[in-house]
């Protein structure tokens, strides 16, 4: 049994002052005022949060320091429709970014394939610690990557293949979903369906969420349009212009995995990028997670981005929730991203407020399954 004594504990929704957490490797046993209970080990910290959850990254798929074929398994740019691909088959647990992310307070991350294909493949929700994907795995598959932005157009337009336009990208997604849907409910057919269709059926059955990578407002609107047509459970990732589509997001209860906040606006789709956007989303009650989008921004410093949003007037609790309880809720985990009795003991300890450059991560605990 271990105990953490802290001046401040963020439990996923509020900040407790001068409190303790008692936990073992499997679960949190207690959070509250120090009840004097003796434990084998005691740790002290200024600020404690649930281990951070990065809701969209390419960590392990696009490896640090290995740009070419050897370390790049992010985009299978040979077919614009690859729902059958699994992120776990591409993740290298020895990517040097994992220990860094862990020391940045991130204990789990949703790894999704890259943006080149309108239908990119299935994600994996993994811990940032472990020598094999099996050790790291929390859930696979977890989510399906869809991509509505300029990346598929650039990739396939150059090959003179569809999609060369936004219409083409939407067509590929829509056609694949219709075809998979055609097999749904038909007993023999469903069994005999291709791997591709089976993968999409999980999305159509709402077992898996659809993660639409979209930056521009019109692309976000297309994602919402398709989601309504097929009754998908959708999350918008990146969401640069999500504030413009706020009404639609709200009406359809669609969350946004926004970020990275610190990113050069290297194309026209990123024109609108600013910390004000996620602040506006949060102020208006859109369920908003903040992501690193690693390798576009280092996962290790996910926490630093929160400062920019707090500077826009967002409460620290709301900002911290965007990398803890909110992503856990979006993924449907009731015992992650929070510190309460029975929750997984993924815990990060800091010597100050987590969003500051000054603050160091003191220690990180990762649950043993």
């Amino acid at each position, binding site marked *: 049994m271990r105990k953490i004594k802290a001046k401040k504990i963020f439990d996923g929704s509020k900040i407790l002052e001068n409190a303790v957490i008692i936990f073992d490797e499997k679960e949190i046993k207690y959070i509250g005022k120090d009840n004097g209970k003796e434990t084998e080990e005691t740790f002290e910290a200024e600020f404690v949060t649930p281990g951070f959850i990065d809701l969209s990254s390419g960590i392990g798929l696009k490896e640090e320091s290995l740009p070419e074929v050897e370390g790049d398994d992010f985009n299978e740019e040979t077919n614009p429709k690859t729902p059958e691909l699994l992120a776990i088959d591409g993740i290298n647990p020895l990517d040097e970014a994992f220990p860094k992310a862990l020391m940045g307070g991130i204990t789990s991350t949703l790894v999704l394939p890259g943006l080149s294909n309108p239908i990119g493949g299935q994600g994996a929700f993994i811990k940032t610690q472990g020598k094999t994907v099996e050790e790291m795995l929390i859930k696979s598959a977890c989510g399906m990557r869809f991509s509505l932005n300029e990346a598929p157009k650039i990739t396939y337009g150059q090959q003179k293949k569809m999609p060369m336009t936004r219409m083409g990208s939407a067509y590929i997604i829509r056609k694949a979903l219709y075809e998979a849907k055609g097999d749904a409910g038909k007993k023999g057919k469903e069994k005999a369906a291709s791997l591709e269709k089976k993968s999409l059926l999980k999305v159509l059955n709402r077992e898996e969420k659809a993660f639409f990578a979209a930056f521009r407002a019109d692309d976000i609107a297309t994602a919402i349009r398709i989601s309504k047509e097929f009754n998908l459970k959708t999350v918008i990732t990146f969401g640069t212009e999500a504030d413009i589509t706020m009404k639609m997001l709200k009406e359809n209860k669609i969350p946004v995995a926004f970020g990275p906040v*610190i990113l*050069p606006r290297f194309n*026209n789709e990123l024109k609108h990028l600013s910390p004000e956007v996620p602040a506006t989303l949060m102020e208006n009650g859109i369920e908003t997670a903040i992501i690193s989008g690693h*390798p576009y921004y*280092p996962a290790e410093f996910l926490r630093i981005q929160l400062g920019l949003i707090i*500077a826009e007037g967002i409460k620290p609790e709301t900002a911290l929730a965007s990398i803890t309880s909110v992503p856990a809720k979006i993924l449907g985990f009731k015992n992650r991203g929070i510190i309460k009795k029975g929750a997984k003991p993924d815990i990060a300890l800091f010597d100050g407020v987590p969003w500051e450059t000054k603050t160091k991560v003191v220690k990180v605990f990762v649950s043993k399954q």
Partner: protein
Amino acid sequence: MILIENGTIYTVTNGIIKNGSVLIDNNGRIKKVSSKKIKANAEKINAKGKLIFPGFIDAHTHLGLFPLETSMSSADGNEMTNPSTPAMRAIDAIYPQDPAFKDAISAGIVLVFTGPGSGNVVGGQSVVVKTYKNTTEEMIVKNPAGVKCAFGENPKRVYSSQKRLPSTRMGVAKVFRETLAKAKEYAKKKKGKKKPQFDLDMEALVPVFEHKIPLRIHSHRADDILTAVRIAKEEFGLDIVIEHGTDSARIREVLAKKKVPVISGPLLDVSPKIETKDSSFETPALLTKAGVLTALMTDHPVMPIQYLPIEAGLVAYQGGAGEEETLKMITINPAKIMNIDKDYGSIEEGKVGNISIWNGHPFSTTAKCETVIAEGKIVFKR
């Protein structure tokens, strides 16, 4: 005249003045810096509770050469058709309406060093520009300010894909040495009676041989840095500055002894290639402690320019360089490296009135730059 009153002044070169005043005259120069009230008939800015810094300087960027919010057709940083192109001039490509200039001002960055990328072994002439003007002519502070060169992976990748020399580090060194040998001869002839036939590329290197400007050498690996020192400094006796210098801390004693400055960074990014594998926020601290003159860079657009102060914060606190030394790395140190420290890089009487006023320490993620004054005029207000 502008009078900034009641603020905490980070002079950089003369400590911190609490409740201080800065007076900037009509010529845009700092007339007085004082811990006492200054009486003057001037436009007053009450900086009570605010922090006052000299305008920041980003010592290595590509501002205007790879404009934001657009496509590759606007990218003008690398003329990758010949590995040695000393006569390329950054000023011919800078797009003053690149939105990144406004981003820079919003973070108190009033001067940047900008120039060609690292595709070529000898890339061309870089320049120091103001971020708050509309035309390149008005923007220029120093031109040329250095000749960009590049060692290691980048030129190798570019030319090996074209099946041309250089495709090895030996090839890179050959192109570099050959260009310098030719330029040395040219510069020598220019001084003599029999003038050489005019050569635009060689002309670009004459100021380097006259020690007016340095070679700004992109290099990450320690062996590449030392190749740069060996050829440029030892064989040809030229002034050099090491750009990026990922592994520079490993040979910091050599660099300190040979008085080679290093511009470190970008650090707030994911290491994109083998050469940058050991990129660390600790590098600037190690260099400084060893006596190497060190500045920071965003390498914009690799890192967004406006986050230079946050990168500096991580260097100061996570990397261990400390607030005071790190502040120098985005003010007086780059000014010294670019030989413009007589006019820029600190809040001192006589220097150009470039000032940024903050509601918190710029190294903090929650601080915001509220007002920027350049040459005595307000150029940004939040």
